[in-house]
């Protein structure tokens, strides 16, 4: 990443043409080459790990406690120095460069944000730009821009201290701070582990939005497999000693767990978990009659008779759903009113089917209103729709594309092909060749996951 340090709008010299349909990828490819970390004489915490993390993708690390997720993550920004092996980011070997300079180019988010308590929110966000010697005005502008990106009003929060924020807000500031100098890579170690489930869900959705805008390379450690399914383009399932049990897309892992360990880790209900992959907007949303408060009730009733339905949705003046009314209630009104409307659950069209089902079950309702941007009514989703989606998923396992990353239970050898393209050879007899990275061979690499994941994240 040759010019990523200061110029926050540059594309960090990434020539990789992964994704022509999307806005420019600002992320960088990360490559761990046969990396080992051992503490003393004990069994290595991470043993001979080779892992490629494609540019602009979110790669989730999951696995049992102590399996080496954090160790692997911290070796990428060298908070933990590998015992052996190399780390290559966008073709540049960063194993021996100055660690502090490396870390200024990599965003890092930890649980509870890790904010410096004696600095204001603004100062926290501006820390890395300040170290990179940006001028004051630029830092101030950038700080406000980022606070807005993570849905915090700069006017209100810029001058507060971390202790004056809720846990979720602190976590948002943590993300904003990590993004401050526009690093191509974001490392996140269980960032949402310390917040309540509702806040976590919101932070996850925000991260998806932020990522859809920025296309960073995100490496995200989590304990929560559902979170991995929800956020990840790719998931790495680790076992003891940083051993990769499976590296694939969430779909691949759910549909074809590589072995018993992965099956156990996913747990039961893989079909149900796939609901976390599909969003409400991706399934058939039924149209139900909806009337705005103040409309003529007789016309409304006529519409309902025509459609042959007994219930209709009442919307407020800004198209936001208020509740159900029955035809009989409407017949007694002159204009549509919300006075007798029955409450019903509402889900956003960007929610996963998993979350939608949850919402309906908790509300004890067999359907829910779907809202789009600014809470505007879109239609309704029913439990049947969700169940149909489950059938569809299990009946139709998606095309299995070659995973872009490999692991080394059996240490695959890196080889340089005729035209300088690096390829992984699982063939153990092949001799390892030292790779020259200067030519950024990753530019030639393509990402098969793109074909079936790209549209969803857009």
């Amino acid at each position: 990443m040759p010019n990523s340090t200061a110029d926050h709008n540059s594309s960090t010299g990434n020539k990789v043409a992964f994704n022509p349909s999307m806005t420019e990828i600002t992320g960088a490819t990360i490559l761990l080459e046969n990396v080992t970390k051992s503490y003393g004489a004990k069994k290595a915490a991470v043993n001979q790990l080779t892992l490629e993390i494609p540019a602009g993708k979110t790669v989730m690390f999951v696995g049992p406690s102590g399996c080496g997720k954090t160790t692997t993550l911290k070796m990428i920004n060298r908070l933990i120095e590998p015992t052996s092996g190399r780390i290559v980011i966008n073709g540049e070997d960063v194993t021996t460069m100055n660690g502090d300079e490396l870390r200024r180019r990599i965003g890092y988010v930890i649980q509870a944000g890790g904010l410096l308590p004696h600095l204001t929110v603004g100062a926290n966000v501006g820390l890395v730009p300040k170290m990179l010697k940006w001028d004051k005005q630029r830092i101030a502008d950038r700080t406000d821009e980022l606070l807005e990106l993570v849905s915090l009003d700069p006017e209100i929060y810029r001058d507060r201290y971390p202790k004056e924020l809720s846990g979720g807000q602190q976590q948002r500031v943590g993300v904003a701070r990590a993004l401050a100098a526009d690093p191509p890579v974001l490392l996140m170690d269980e960032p949402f582990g310390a917040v309540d489930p509702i806040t976590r869900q919101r932070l996850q959705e925000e991260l998806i939005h932020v990522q859809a805008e920025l296309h960073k390379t995100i490496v995200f450690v989590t304990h929560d497999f559902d979170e991995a399914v929800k956020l990840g383009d790719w998931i790495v399932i680790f076992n003891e000693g940083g051993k990769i049990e499976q590296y694939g897309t969430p779909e691949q892992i759910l549909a074809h767990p590589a072995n018993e360990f992965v099956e156990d880790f996913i747990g039961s209900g893989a079909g149900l978990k796939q609901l976390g992959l599909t969003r409400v907007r991706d399934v058939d949303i039924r149209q139900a009659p909806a009337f705005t408060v103040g409309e003529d009730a007789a016309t409304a009733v006529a519409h309902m008779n025509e459609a042959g339905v007994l219930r209709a949705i009442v919307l407020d003046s800004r198209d936001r759903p208020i509740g159900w009314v029955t035809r009989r209630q409407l017949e007694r009104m002159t204009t549509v009113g919300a006075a007798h409307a029955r409450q019903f659950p509402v889900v956003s069209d960007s929610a996963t089917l998993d979350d939608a089902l949850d919402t309906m079950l908790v509300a004890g309702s067999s359907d829910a209103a779907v809202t789009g941007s600014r809470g505007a009514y879109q239609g309704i989703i029913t439990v049947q729709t969700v169940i149909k989606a489950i059938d569809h998923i299990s009946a139709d396992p998606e095309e299995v594309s070659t995973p872009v990353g490999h692991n080394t239970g059996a240490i695959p050898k890196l080889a340089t092909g005729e035209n300088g393209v690096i390829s992984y050879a699982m063939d153990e007899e092949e001799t390892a060749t030292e790779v020259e990275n200067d030519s950024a061979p990753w530019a030639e690499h393509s990402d098969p996951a793109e074909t079936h994941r790209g549209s969803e994240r857009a």
Partner: protein
Amino acid sequence: MSSATQEQTETKEATASLTQANSWKGLLIQPIVLLVILGVMFWWMSTADLTETERITLNASYLSTLAWEHLKLTIISAVIVLVTAIPVGILLTRGPFRKLTTPVMALANIGQAAPPVGLIVLFAFWLSFGTTAAIVTLVVYAFLPVLKNTMVGLEAVDKRTIEAARGMGMSPGMVLWKVELPLAVPVMLAGIRTALVLLVGTATLATFINGGGLGLLITTGVNLALDRVLIFGSLLVAVFALAVDWIARVIETAVTPKGL
């Protein structure tokens, strides 16, 4: 953001500013009380019917000489303590020097546990009688609280905060200056305040080895059985100690980072 969280943070802010206001109010009362006591003492001195011998010590010019000597002893030893104990404390919390913590703490503990009267005489025989031996004693005596609080303050900084700072690309030096020390400041200053008060009190012993200071009033009072000189001297030292305590507290309030 929900209005509930907003309310919550606002209440938090309100409490924060309230406690701050309280602490400033508390800080105002102390100097007023001290000034009143001092005023009464000097009013009594100028009006009381003092004997000739008492007059020799209880007069403004002689008192100010003694007070100045006392102040010098305190300040010089305090400065020496600060520039030695704080760096040593920082060093002992850095990786390779951690092993030295136990022996250094043991030494510092001896320094504090030994009775200063004994210490001061020993140092006097060793270094000759006078101010130097007095200052050495004072430094040895006040070293521990500053050292200990520096270490405790630094160790108490949340390891995750330090790691986050490192993760953003701060060098170890920057982490120390910009993160660890600011966060350790409240605890360190508490130690410094303790040390200062100890110093003011202990500096009275300097008079035993011709080191000067307000202790002279007390020894004179005892030796010549001049109760009024003895009481006046003791009170003066107490007021002095409380004044130093007050100054240290003002500094504490002023320099403690706002976000804590």
